[in-house]
């Protein structure tokens, strides 16, 4: 494996990490706000707050890690994506800022404020939508070079069906991933009511999620045939992913092990995410930028990989400790809180 591939695999893995933890986070915010509106907050709020509180900051770092890493490994992406993404990325920053700060303000300042919770929930759906635009742009056809500077054609982007398919997928996936996770978490907390409610949401969102996901593949056929063909070559990965999806739904339907359901769900998304990534190879921005012509110099690549390994040696035990103390700590999950507000 050469360094280019290693670099993109590392980054893709971290992006996948972000997709999962952020989906749980965004979806939880939405369900929390929704439960407030329909008057079910007593069932859900405790479960959601207990999970979200210790990890909200960590979730954000996954994203920072990805964009710092991609500029490090592939500096040319700063030139292309940096120039064209000013407006969409600024909106995403704005939403992330509102979300991060209002979460802290609400939790520590004015607990239970309806307006905050509502903004928090809404931003959770808008952020995935605004971030997923990058995926659309990377498929090519929206960026042209004018005087050597990349320029984004917003109107073409706006009216492209591909854009809207990806936006829809990001929203349905967020709600699906989050509800499956929270079903498991609520079940661990022995909260029967919350489990039942989250289970219902998981089943509701399963079908729209898989329909929008399949829709993307159809859309790509019209938009980027080369990518579509490469995806067809990887049909077995998508097929496996679909089987995992069916098993997840089956398990949840039959109220079997929710933990296993969540593991299968992660497997399903990992397969689809990596199959999508592999079929995108070697382009970072089709057809202007590949991972080869944007790769950093050898010395930097090696030092980044060394720093990455050293960093992981520090992070993995810490993350394990975090999970053990909260996610896998029965007393904490059940709400024997150590926190005195």
């Amino acid at each position: 494996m050469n360094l280019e591939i290693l670099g993109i695999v590392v980054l893709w893995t971290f992006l996948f990490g972000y997709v999962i933890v952020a989906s749980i986070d965004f979806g939880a915010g939405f369900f929390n706000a929704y439960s407030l509106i329909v008057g079910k907050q007593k069932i859900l709020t405790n479960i959601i707050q207990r999970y979200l509180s210790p990890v909200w900051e960590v979730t954000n770092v996954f994203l920072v890690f990805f964009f710092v890493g991609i500029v490090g490994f592939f500096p040319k992406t700063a030139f292309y994506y940096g120039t064209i993404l000013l407006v969409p990325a600024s909106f995403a920053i704005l939403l992330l800022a509102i979300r991060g700060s209002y979460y802290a303000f609400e939790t520590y300042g004015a607990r239970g404020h309806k307006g905050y919770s509502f903004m928090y929930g809404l931003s959770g759906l808008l952020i995935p939508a605004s971030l997923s635009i990058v995926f659309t742009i990377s498929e090519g056809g929206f960026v042209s070079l004018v005087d050597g500077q990349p320029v984004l054609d917003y109107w073409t982007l706006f009216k492209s069906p591909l854009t809207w398919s990806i936006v829809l997928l990001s929203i349905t996936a967020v709600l699906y991933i989050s509800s499956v996770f929270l079903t498991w978490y609520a079940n661990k907390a022995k909260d029967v009511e919350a489990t039942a409610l989250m289970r219902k949401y998981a089943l509701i969102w399963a079908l729209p999620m898989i329909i929008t996901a399949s829709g993307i593949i159809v859309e790509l056929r019209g938009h980027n045939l080369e990518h579509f063909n490469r995806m067809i070559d990887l049909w077995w990965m998508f097929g496996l992913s679909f089987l995992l999806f069916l098993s997840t739904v089956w398990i949840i339907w039959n109220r079997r092990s929710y933990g296993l359901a969540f593991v299968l769900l992660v497997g399903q998304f990992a397969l689809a995410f990596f199959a999508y990534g592999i079929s995108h190879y070697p382009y970072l921005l089709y057809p202007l930028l590949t991972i080869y012509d944007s790769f950093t110099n050898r010395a930097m690549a090696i030092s980044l990989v060394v720093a990455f390994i050293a960093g992981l040696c520090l992070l993995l035990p810490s993350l394990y400790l975090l999970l053990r103390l909260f996610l896998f700590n029965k007393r904490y999950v059940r709400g024997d809180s150590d926190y005195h507000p």
Partner: protein
Amino acid sequence: MLNEDALFYSRVLTELTLSFHIIYATIGVGVPLMIMIAQWVGIKKNDEHYILLARRWTRGFVITVAVGVVTGTAIGLQLSLLWPNFMELAGHVIALPLFMETFAFFFEAIFLGIYLYTWDRFENQRKHLLLLIPVAIGASFSAVFITMVNAFMNAPQGFEIMNGELVNINPLVAMFNPAMPTKVAHVVATAYMTAAFILASIAAFRLLRGSNHIYHKKALFLTMKLGLIFSIATAVIGDFSGKYLAEYQPEKLAAAEWHFETEENAPLILYGVLDDGEVKYAFKIPSALSILAHGFPSSEVVGLDQFADDEIPPLSIHYMFDIMVTIGVWMVILSLVFWLGTRRGWAFIQTKWYRWLIVLGGPLSVIAIEAGWWLAEVGRQPWVLRGVMRTAEAATSSNQVDKMLILFAGLYLILGIGSIVVLSRMFRRNPVEREIEDRKAEKGGATS
């Protein structure tokens, strides 16, 4: 292709974001150390008050961290969005410390979460202290790594340019550039100093506002003592920074000192105004600039006459230098008198007016931080990478920067007001007297 509007607004937006971010970032770097020290003192003296101090600081700290995180995310992305050409070049050379900063930040985030949500889980306070150590280390090291990036922009090295291409890149040489030691040390020391004085001004304010609890007196003495240590450290390192500038970046020093002609026995100019190229109403201390620059009164200091007109930074940075140094010296004196006065029992340090001066000290330190950063950043104009890339060549070509500026200005306004409101409400609703009572009640309930 140069886009003048985009360049101007990019500079304004970057300045706005950073000026806002560094307030929270400085608190974010300095306060964890203070929390850790308070926890440690509490364990050592077996004094509940210090433990409580650590916890109350942490609770406020979380709010500032939240704003620091989101504005930090903003500046992290804005670097690529507003300065794509710079990041493309810099990514090749300086990505390593940027990358390491996210690890430090990750590390801090994990342990801060653990500390916050295991408030009373462990019987032994030492375990809580153990959780605070990685928080303080992570916070300080993110400052170290990110300042390395900034130092590189002032003293780029670790690469060569051949036919417009970067060759012979060495990331470690780029990280350990000549500007690095003084910059990193100064940034970290001032962050500790500012955090200590901000916490001191809170304690002084509570004492002024009627609460005469011993808790606030302990907090005040601890933070003023720490503030004294770190403000002296800051002054010493500041002197080294001056010597660094004289050696490696003389145009910044010369512009900050209004030192126009290269000469020996160069005087230090304090205050004054610049009127049509003439310095008026200034104090001149003979030979002081030579001492500041090289350690000897007779040494020669390079003046602005040695530089082309389009390579000289704006002369207004002199005012920033004055503000920074004056506040720094003032804080050393204020905290030194307080410390001596407490030990010797001078009555006047207990008076209202002296406490008001301490209350002022926190905001003043923040102003000094801002002035210092403006001095450092404007002082390397017109370069974004000194001697390699001009700021004008680095900016984006996008036409939407002005709109984004308005957007972000609105965001920072909301965040600023929001954080102040939440913080003051949080502590006003739950004063320390009540919290001590609550904890007693809890403990009583537990043992009976």
